[in-house]
């Protein structure tokens, strides 16, 4: 391919957006445009063509046409515990508007990040859920509800815009030292709650492999939904053991009622899943990932969990060190500022005008 490939990444200021943008920029022939609501100064990615805009802005179609974007990675997604109007507007309506804009402006491929949670956890789930399994995801957690909404919209939209390839990557529980995901939050509890007498099989995937899969899918020629997870699936209690956590087994009727009583926000930090996800099996089949997409995670499930366990063991100490680091930086900034002011005032004592010296001091500060 002689001409430069243009890829637009929405949510480029967020965790996944910025990491995927960096991953895409590794290829020299790729021009990456980042779009997000954050100010341009906050996004420090070398080589990224950043534009401050709302991903749901109707003018985005115009931008896509002007820049001749062929691939869009839609990663603007707010993970909220509780469904509310603003996040619905941003997540669901944003995705719908973006897909509409893509269909109108000659974009060939859209890549979205979803979760295997959209299948839902149910006693009659097939042992390995294929991509065409019905989407029966729980609707109480905001993030899962929005993903189900977006996915069911896409299922209809594929027929409306057949020339647009939509690739949805459904990731298993994302774990790793840096990402903020439900599974990471769950495992950072000292005693993660489990249901007494239940030990469902679960899959995990390392955060680096999530980025790897999204970059892989952006360059790939195939489309459709794909389950992405690391081998092997393992029982929840083994996941806890590998992450170095002891389970807190609770009777399941208590958890069902308790989580409803306590309210989503309080429970969200402690139990980020709906209760069914800790009770029934929701293991996804990975045949399409291996054979059609040709993606193979770099981390085995136990390696991903060991990476998290290492982070969890050091977290109490490293956070304090980071604090010191931040202090030192802030102090250095203050010292620099004062030194500049002192130098300016020294200069001012040589010159008779006092007001001019103040102006100079401000200039030095800004410089």
């Amino acid at each position, binding site marked *: 391919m002689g001409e430069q490939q243009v890829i637009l990444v929405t949510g480029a200021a967020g965790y996944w957006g910025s990491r995927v943008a960096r991953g895409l920029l590794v290829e020299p022939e790729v021009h990456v445009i980042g779009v997000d609501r954050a100010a341009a100064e906050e996004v420090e990615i070398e080589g990224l063509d950043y534009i401050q805009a709302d991903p749901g802005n109707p003018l985005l179609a115009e931008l896509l046409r002007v820049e001749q974007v062929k691939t869009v990675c839609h990663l603007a997604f707010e993970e909220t515990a509780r469904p509310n109007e603003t996040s619905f507007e941003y997540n669901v309506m944003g995705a719908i508007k973006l897909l509409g804009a893509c269909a109108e402006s000659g974009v060939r491929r859209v890549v979205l990040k979803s979760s295997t949670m959209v299948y839902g956890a149910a*006693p*009659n*789930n*097939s*042992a*390995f859920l*294929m991509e065409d399994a019905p989407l029966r995801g729980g609707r109480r957690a905001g993030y899962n509800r929005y993903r189900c909404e977006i996915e069911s919209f896409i299922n209809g939209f594929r027929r409306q815009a057949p020339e647009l390839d939509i690739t949805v990557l459904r990731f298993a529980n994302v774990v790793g030292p840096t990402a903020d995901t439900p599974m990471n939050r769950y495992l950072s509890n000292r005693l993660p709650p489990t*249901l*007494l*007498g*239940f*030990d*469902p*099989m679960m899959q995990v995937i390392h955060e680096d492999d999530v980025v790897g899969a999204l970059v892989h899918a952006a360059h790939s020629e195939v489309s459709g939904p794909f389950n992405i997870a690391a*081998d*092997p*699936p*393992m*029982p929840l209690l*083994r*996941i*806890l*053991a*590998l992450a170095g956590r*002891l389970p807190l087994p609770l*009777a*399941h009727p208590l958890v069902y009622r308790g989580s409803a009583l306590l309210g989503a926000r309080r429970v969200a930090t402690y139990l980020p899943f709906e209760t069914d996800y800790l*009770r*029934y*099996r929701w*293991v996804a089949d990975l045949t399409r990932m291996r054979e059609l997409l040709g993606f193979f995670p770099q981390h085995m499930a*136990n390696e991903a*969990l060991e990476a998290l366990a290492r982070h969890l063991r050091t977290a109490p100490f490293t956070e304090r060190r980071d604090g010191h680091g931040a202090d030192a930086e802030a102090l250095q900034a203050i010292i620099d500022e004062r030194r500049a002011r002192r130098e300016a005032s020294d200069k001012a004592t040589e010159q008779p005008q006092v007001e001019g010296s103040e102006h100079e001091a401000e200039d030095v500060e800004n410089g």
Partner: protein
Amino acid sequence: MVDDQERTRCLATTRAGAQCKNLALSDMEYCHVHAVVAADPDGADPSGADNAPASSAPDEASTAPSEPELRRQMAAELNRMIEELEQASPDFTPPPFSPTALIDLIKQNLEQLPAPMRVDALYRLRSAVLDDDGLDMESWRDVWYLIHYWRSHHDSFFERLQGQLGSLPLPAGVAQRLGAIFNEDLLDPETWKGLWFMMSYSARYQADMVRRRFTGEYETDEWGMDWEFLDAVRPFFTFLYKYYWRVQTTGVENIPDYERALIVANHSGQLPFDGAMIGTAVLLEHPAQRLVRNLYADWFPTLPFLAPLLDKMGQSLASVENGTRLLENEELVAVYPEGYKGVGKLFKERYRLARFGRGGFVKMALKTQAPIIPTAVVGAEETYISLYKSRTLAQLTGFPYFPISLTWPWLGILGLVPLPTRWSIDFGEPLSMDAYPADAAENLVLVSQLTDQVRNIIQEMIYERLAERRSIFLG
């Protein structure tokens, strides 16, 4: 492998305690299954000579390759052992060595071996003596010394024990019996060594297992099957199989050793013990000790403790997708097409098969060309005497059916104890699916025909077994 008439039967016993039915491998006493179990790393070690019975010591020596290098190594090893023993008890001197005395010794100890091995051992011994490359007299002398050392200590141990036994204030009969035991292998020091080794090993293994449960260092397959867990619960099911229901199993030879196959069985007995017993039967009686993947109803995943238990024992939810996937992995799958209708039968309806579902099991078999093994379980119907099914209580409790039996729910949890009837499990002739094309699973007429055919075969098998059965509890 069957055409070789020369080969003997495998010497090992199966886990059920029966003689293994497989032929032995050409150069071993065990079949392909037990060869791995019997492979003993110490067997090849020449140091085993000091505690082996008399005739097997030279026997082992003679089986070593006749290269002089190896022989020299062995002689050095024997010398080293003798030195060690001499240091341990310097006052020990063996009787003077002579070939006739050695032959006498061999005669005495030969009786400890089973008959076919005796002849073999003698042949080997003769060749070792006649062969120029065989052991030299020095090595024979070493062997002589070791055997006598071992015997003298062995005997003194016996004498001490029997002396102590005589001094104990025991009734005459008991002392006599104990004395008889002491003369047998039970008080052979080797037995105790073995026992000690096994006990300390199992204690260490169990401590290690508990530790690894906490650190996550255990493996399950992708379905959740956990061999360690299976080994832990196996004794319970073996007890039920052998002593509680005294299951009589026929036709295990119809189950292939490695390939895929689909066991289709009748379902009965209110609780799915019949599935557990079919699994135990194959694990205990079949030479390949295969794991049966039972497919269970979608009510069980909702039950605490039972759901993970079933998963860890390698069972999975009954669906055509799951069954097909398992069969494609060359697994042995068992299905119970009667479902709740079968398991929840009333006592008066016993042994009359219910409708065989919607033929999902035939679709699985046709898709994967897996042979169907019709299986009849007799005896499970009488474990509970269900008189009535209460729809109201079923709705209230969320059970798929709620039986009222002679004991349940009147006796509470005790009402769940099944009656100790005598069971029989018959694995029938496999029905091959090879003749049908790959897309035959879409042919609904064929599927329903095959469903009925399998159902009739199983019904006939049940009637046949019932005709032979004289007593519910004694078989």
